[in-house]
């Protein structure tokens, strides 16, 4: 076997050196009654070329996604990824190494994480950034748990415009704690402020909102934070489309206490839903309750600046059942991807791409409204995703788009069952759609 260098002859020699006559002597402690009697019933080993043929064949059963442009986001956004990032990521020193427990042999990983923490801290204006929790949904759940620990309260108010998968995940994580979870309704595509004022009382640990929200709407975070703080609760702001951070005001500046972000837009492929990554930012005063790993700067015995995993006394391998989270392996390679991506983009590049996403989305919305085939159902400011009601049946619309190599927008009724959302589509636009592409979309849908 090409991945197993030891030959049968070497195995014999090794068994002899161990002092046994057969392999069986080594596994005597496994009860005979439980042993497998037959070979595993799985396909026989394939050669590398057979394997390629086989997987190519399966991949072909997908649509030819390489040449298709998405009009859908809803938590997963196709942005352009520079080749330099993909190339650097694959260096084996990054790709094949383990969690950096031994700082002497992992400064590459550790410094990269530190740089990423620094970038995200500037984008969201938070002092502390946990670089990696599996994804936006699980990170939101971790933030919810963190707010319970910080406030010693057991009630959470969750915006209805938080990504439905994130809401579901929060519920799953909180189930054992019997936390009261209250739905916060929306009004005209944004958090309903009046309802928030009524719902929030002194017993709430936190309020979770998303901005830009699931409909793409940009929430008035400062106003929300005033209401939330007036009752002593914490505000958790979730960002699902992190590309928006290039031009939007940082949530940390507007009173958010915990900021959770899906980092997929920052240099990660769609990959049918994962692996992505999420960051969690907060203030230094809350540092003892943060989940997950964080990297800090220190010196080595020669006085050289170096980086180490730090504040580890909160973690599962030390604190066991009293840890702030069970998280161990996370998504560090995705952290590196984002770090390289942000380094390539730089100050100006991220600003420009972020701006372009917003502009081209507004361009498409305008074209579709002008076509007379769509109308606005809710009126709110948006970043790069927006809702439009189609006069034609949405299934027909989506079929036309698919035939023309566009991944169709989300039928919002799959997630929201309000009457005015019937036959409504959630469009997403990113910089991978050119003006020609957008004009074509409008043309197809005007016919």
């Amino acid at each position, binding site marked *: 076997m090409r991945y197993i260098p030891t030959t049968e002859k070497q195995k014999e020699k090794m068994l002899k050196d161990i002092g046994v006559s057969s392999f069986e002597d080594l596994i005597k402690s496994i009860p005979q009654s439980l042993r497998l009697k037959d070979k595993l019933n799985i396909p026989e080993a394939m050669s590398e070329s057979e394997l390629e043929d086989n997987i190519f064949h399966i991949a072909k059963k997908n649509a030819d996604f390489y040449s298709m442009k998405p009009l859908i986001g809803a938590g997963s956004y196709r942005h352009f990824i520079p080749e330099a990032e993909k190339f650097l990521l694959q260096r084996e020193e990054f790709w094949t190494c383990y969690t950096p427990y031994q700082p002497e042999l992992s400064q590459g*990983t550790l410094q990269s994480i530190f740089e990423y923490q620094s970038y995200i801290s500037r984008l969201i204006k938070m002092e502390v950034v946990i670089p990696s929790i599996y994804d936006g949904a699980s990170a939101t759940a971790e933030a919810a748990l963190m707010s319970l620990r910080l406030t010693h309260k057991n009630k959470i108010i969750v915006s209805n415009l938080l990504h439905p998968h994130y809401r579901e995940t929060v519920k799953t994580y909180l189930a054992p704690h019997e936390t009261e979870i209250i739905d916060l309704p929306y009004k005209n595509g944004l958090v309903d402020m009046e309802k928030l004022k009524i719902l929030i009382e002194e017993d709430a640990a936190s309020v979770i909102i998303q901005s830009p929200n699931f409909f793409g709407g940009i929430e008035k975070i400062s106003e929300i934070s005033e209401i939330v703080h007036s009752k002593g609760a914490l505000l958790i702001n979730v960002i699902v489309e992190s590309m928006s951070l290039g031009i939007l005001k940082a949530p940390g500046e507007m009173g958010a206490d915990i900021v959770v972000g899906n980092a997929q837009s920052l240099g990660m492929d769609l990959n049918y839903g*994962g692996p992505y990554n999420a960051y969690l930012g907060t203030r230094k005063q809350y540092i003892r309750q943060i989940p997950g790993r964080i990297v800090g700067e220190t010196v080595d015995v020669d006085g050289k600046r170096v980086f180490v995993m730090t504040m580890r006394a909160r973690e599962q391998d030390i604190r066991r059942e009293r840890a702030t989270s069970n998280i161990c392996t*996370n998504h560090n390679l995705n952290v590196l991807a984002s770090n390289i991506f942000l380094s390539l983009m*730089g100050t100006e590049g991220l600003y420009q*791409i972020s701006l372009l996403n917003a502009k081209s989305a507004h361009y498409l919305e305008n074209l579709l409204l002008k076509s007379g085939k769509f109308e606005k159902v809710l009126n709110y400011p948006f970043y790069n995703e927006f809702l439009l009601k189609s006069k034609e049946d949405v299934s027909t619309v989506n079929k036309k788009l698919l035939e023309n190599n566009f991944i169709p927008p989300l039928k919002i009724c799959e997630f929201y069952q309000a009457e005015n959302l019937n036959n409504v589509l959630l469009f997403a636009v990113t910089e991978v759609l050119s003006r020609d592409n957008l004009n074509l979309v409008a043309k197809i849908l005007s016919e």
Partner: protein
Amino acid sequence: MKLIFEKTVKGRDGYSLPQDLFDDIRIEECLPEYAINKGKKLLSEVSEVDVVRHFTKLSKLNYGLDDGIYPLGSCTMKYNPKINEKLASLGNFIYAHPLAPEETVQGCLEIIYDLNKLLCEITGMDEYTMGPAAGAHGELAGILIMRKYFVDHGDIRHKMLIPDSAHGTNPASAAMGGFQVVEVKSNEKGTVDLEELAKLMDEDTVGLMLTNPNTVGLYDEGIEEIEKIVHGKGGLLYYDGANLNASLGIIRPGDAGFDVVHLNLHKTFSTPHGGGGPGAGVIGVKKDLIPYLPTPNVTFNSNQKKYYLSDTGEKSIGMVRAFWANFSVLVKTYTWILSMGPDGLYNTSETSIINANYVLAKLKKYYKPAYDRYCGHECTVTGREYKKYGVKTLDIAKRIMDYGMHPPTIYFPHFEPYAEETIMVEPPESESKETLDKFIDIMIKISDEAKTNPELLTTAPHNTPIRRTNDALAIKRAILTYDDELKLKDELKYQEKDIDF
């Protein structure tokens, strides 16, 4: 080495933008004032060349699996085949949107569905869920399934039994799942003390989380007894699959009576660790627990010959993440299993067990084993006898680096009186006899150095990119971003003698 921020030259750039920036659209007319940031957020300003050199240089400060042996116990640092990476990065996979219409993602769904069946056969379980992103994430999902099962049966239980040799994630996950953790002591053989287990297992206990072989690398020969004790009180048996590399084609957790299993695909199934993920922590269950699996799952309609994403029903614990799975990790797992076939999987476990016992046999004269018996795919020795020379196990590990190798896991597991100053070596099947011999020689040489020149060890490493770190200072200063560093520099008024930036 300099940070990317310190390489910034104002006006330099590394991006490429489309020609058409939609200058005809005015952003002020699209977005309200409260939304837009004043000015640009400062990142870095470097060229693509700078970026490529920066990260190439950073990579050279790391030690990877392709550099040599990485014998971390309980981590299964095995070779990551290159073909897996190519096949996982096919355009039809990486550009597949998770909410694209089902008819456009039949290939992705087929892989998820088929992998589910393969893993069921390999482990003897009835159904898998692919959602969990890592081992600990799988543990949490598995524990929530157990919880839901008991709640559904109107049988509210509060405790979870966990051996003292378990990974830290086990008790942490059990606590997140709302259970009180009760520790089960190991016996003089290094395995679960059956008498104590029988005493502790009661009708207020959901079950036992067990790693087998355990973290000392020992098969629990009492597994049949354990199964009887736990099931006898109506409990469930949870299998931590971190150490599955010793079992392929030999024994299946499902046949041994386990009800829930999590597998770390980034361990046994060869997907890369990436400096700490992404991996995948899929879980398998027995028939009775299928209704509680996280939602959704992939089903196949044989009439229509189509795969679907299906809701698992109202008993499901719900979603544990956004979307469906760490899909690219699944593709790599799938390709690895198909490359190995049934004989290759058996060979994997056979070789890794022989490797670990070979290392143990050769080292035991120099490093006292935690338990003197044959081990599974990893062995645990100790550095106890070098304490009298002023040498700690940590020093031994650091000295290994000077010889160009990654050290084994140290100080884990830790339980008295057997497992102290532990050195846990896991030499997976992808390490050759020659590599093991070299590792063994170095370990023996270091044991000699410990007696004759202990200072060489206590001051090690000497030949690595950096040397031992001041971890207490990291906590005290709490410099977690470049801006923290700038602030500190300001406060210290650039006292370079304090810190060499």
